[in-house]
């Protein structure tokens, strides 16, 4: 019998380890895309960034606990920071590590839906009593893949005290009136930025509703219209505000909030949560009483004010516990007592007709005004249908910034943006 010397034994052990490692890395027989586990299982996961956010975690945990007690199920919760959430959820869904219900920003739906692992929640949507605009935020290619949890919009907020001091009477309704108001505010001096509009590339996607205001659809069918006359006019107008110091350089959403909270900005763009966020940063405890939402000014009277739809949906991953997870998603988003209590704690508007009519919600003037003036005509970003929407937005934002700093003309820059964005439409 032949004996192994030490070197041969090492070689054999090394080859064995390599083989074991390769075997471990190989995909399983079921295939990466097939749903795994028992859909009827009474244990499922719930992944949500809100579960770890100071302002919301108690309210979200209360919903989880209430449903677990009511339904006799076990819910395993997980959370990732908002800024890393999409990457983490995508990686885990691809690796088969994600199951159950998952909170999503509405702009992320396409990216996850493209992986083909989300359950169709049409049946739950049909009986939930959701508003049409809310339901649209969870729809992808005709399928209801998400149940809307909160639906709002990104719109303009004004500091009425500054406007009053500047002699601006009433809220500006047209672009011309808006520009006049900004010029009046500028005359106040004191370091006040009339409009704390986004001018940093990371947030310059805020210009898209202005492009729509000027008449550009942004996307027609699958043709990007950024670069048309309307979008060029919008960017030239933005540049005019920038040169006249009516908007300030290097501002993103966080800067704008800080400026507004310090009483150093008359207008800025934000979501409906602006009230709570700004109040927390402001030394002026009466600031929230001076805040007023306004419909985005239109190019000419009679046009529809533009606003960007914003909100959260809950999706369900096919497989382990997906039936109970779908029922949980329905409960969290459409049970009237639950959504009203959630609103009371976190001020995120519900998505059902009954929820919006609940006295706790309807009695909140700021929310009802916001819904009426801004959310009512809000529409999703047309680029959200593409998994690469963020890169498309970045391509446009970078070119708009080039215009602002004088490196390019609006026409050339937007033509280049459209060219860059074209291959990202997938």
């Amino acid at each position, binding site marked *: 019998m032949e004996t192994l010397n030490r070197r041969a034994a090492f070689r054999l052990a090394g080859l064995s380890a390599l083989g074991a490692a390769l075997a471990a890395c190989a995909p399983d027989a079921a295939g990466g895309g097939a749903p795994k586990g028992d859909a009827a299982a009474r244990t499922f996961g719930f992944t949500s960034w809100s579960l*770890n956010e100071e*302002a919301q975690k108690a309210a979200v945990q209360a919903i989880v606990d209430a449903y677990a007690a009511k339904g006799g199920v076990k819910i395993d919760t997980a959370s*990732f920071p*908002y800024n890393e959430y999409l990457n983490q959820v995508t990686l885990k869904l691809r690796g088969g590590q994600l199951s159950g219900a998952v909170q999503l920003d509405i702009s992320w739906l396409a990216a996850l839906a493209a992986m083909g692992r989300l359950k169709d929640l049409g049946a739950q949507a049909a009986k939930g009593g959701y508003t049409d605009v809310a339901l649209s935020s969870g729809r992808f290619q005709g399928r209801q893949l998400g149940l809307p949890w909160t639906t709002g919009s990104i719109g303009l907020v004004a500091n009425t005290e500054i406007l009053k001091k500047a002699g601006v009477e009433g809220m500006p309704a047209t672009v011309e009136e808006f520009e006049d108001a900004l010029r009046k505010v500028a005359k106040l001096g004191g370091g006040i930025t009339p409009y704390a509009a986004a001018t940093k590339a990371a947030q310059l996607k805020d210009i898209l509703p202005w492009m729509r205001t000027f008449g550009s659809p942004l996307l027609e069918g699958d043709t990007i219209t950024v670069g048309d006359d309307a979008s060029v006019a919008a960017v030239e107008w933005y540049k005019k505000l920038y040169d006249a110091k009516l908007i300030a350089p290097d501002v993103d959403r966080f800067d704008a909030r800080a400026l507004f*909270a*310090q009483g150093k900005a008359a207008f800025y763009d934000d979501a409906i949560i602006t009230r709570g*966020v700004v109040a927390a*940063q402001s030394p002026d405890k009466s600031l929230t009483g001076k805040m007023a939402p306004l419909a985005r000014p239109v190019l000419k009277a009679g046009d529809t004010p533009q606003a960007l739809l914003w909100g959260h949906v809950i999706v369900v991953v096919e497989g382990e516990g997906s039936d109970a997870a779908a029922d949980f998603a329905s409960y969290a988003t459409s049970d009237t007592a639950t959504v009203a209590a959630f609103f009371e704690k976190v001020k995120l508007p519900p998505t059902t007709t009954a929820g919006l009519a609940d006295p706790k919600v309807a009695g909140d003037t700021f929310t009802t005004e916001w819904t009426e003036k801004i959310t009512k005509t809000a529409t999703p970003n047309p680029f959200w249908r593409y998994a690469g929407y963020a890169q498309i937005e970045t391509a446009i934002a970078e070119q708009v910034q080039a215009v602002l700093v004088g490196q390019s003309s609006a026409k050339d820059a937007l033509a280049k943006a459209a060219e860059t964005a074209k291959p990202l439409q997938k």
Partner: protein
Amino acid sequence: MTATLSRSVPIARAPRRRRPRSRAAAWAAVAVIGFFGLAPIYWLVVTAFTPDERAFTFPPSLVPTEITFDHFARLAQNEQLFGYLVNSVVVSVVTAFLSVLVSAYMAYAFSKFRYRGRKSLMHLVLASQLFPQALLLVTLYAVFSASGLLGSYGALILSFTTFTLPLCVWMLKGIFDTVPSTLMEAAAIDGASRWRTLHQIALPLAAPGLVAAGLFAFVRAWNDFIFALTLTDPDRQTLPPGLVHTYLGEFQTAWPDLMAASFVVSLPVIAAFMFLQRYLVGGLTAGAVKG
């Protein structure tokens, strides 16, 4: 001898005074670099002691007008952060230990033995540093997922050790190169085994290098964000993702609390550096010049 002495005369001359202009330039360079190095730390400390509503004052005040300890009080009450701290300590200490252990043997083998493929292996180890580590995340995720390690301390420790090994190995190889081979030969003549020669002669002589390698591995593990976030379960995450998770939200960032937490969690690392700095400097430079 005479010639040697006569040549040494210019060397013995009194050193020329540096010109005031070059001295001023040197100080200006130090001031600029010092400003960029220290200003963020100053701002971190100031913000940590500034009340929330004052932290966003525009224009910002360089000197705090009000001081609060509220953020530190809230930090002390946050049990979750203590959990992140424990995770950081466990992962960083084990990573440092494993890195030193493995790299010491590898470096010794590279330095003191001659065998076929040695140089290729050494360059292969170094080449692994050329890949952006973020690119390896997806692969490592799949490997750990398939092996059942995903979510555990083991996944983090193994990945961090993998990343720190190349630099540790090369650092320690340089140090072992400076240990005279005659010492090993003398030990062998005296009857010491290779094992004993390594552990009782080479390793004690390379102690500063081992400490430097350990500190490097510790800091690498302590500071990592993306691997710590992705490869572990939330209850095993370390401080960097833990702090982000706790203070950076969808709508707002609790900057003063985040700065207070960052200030406190950096103290153990500062203390470790102060305690071990003489080893660190000695270890990093020991292999630089061969005697």
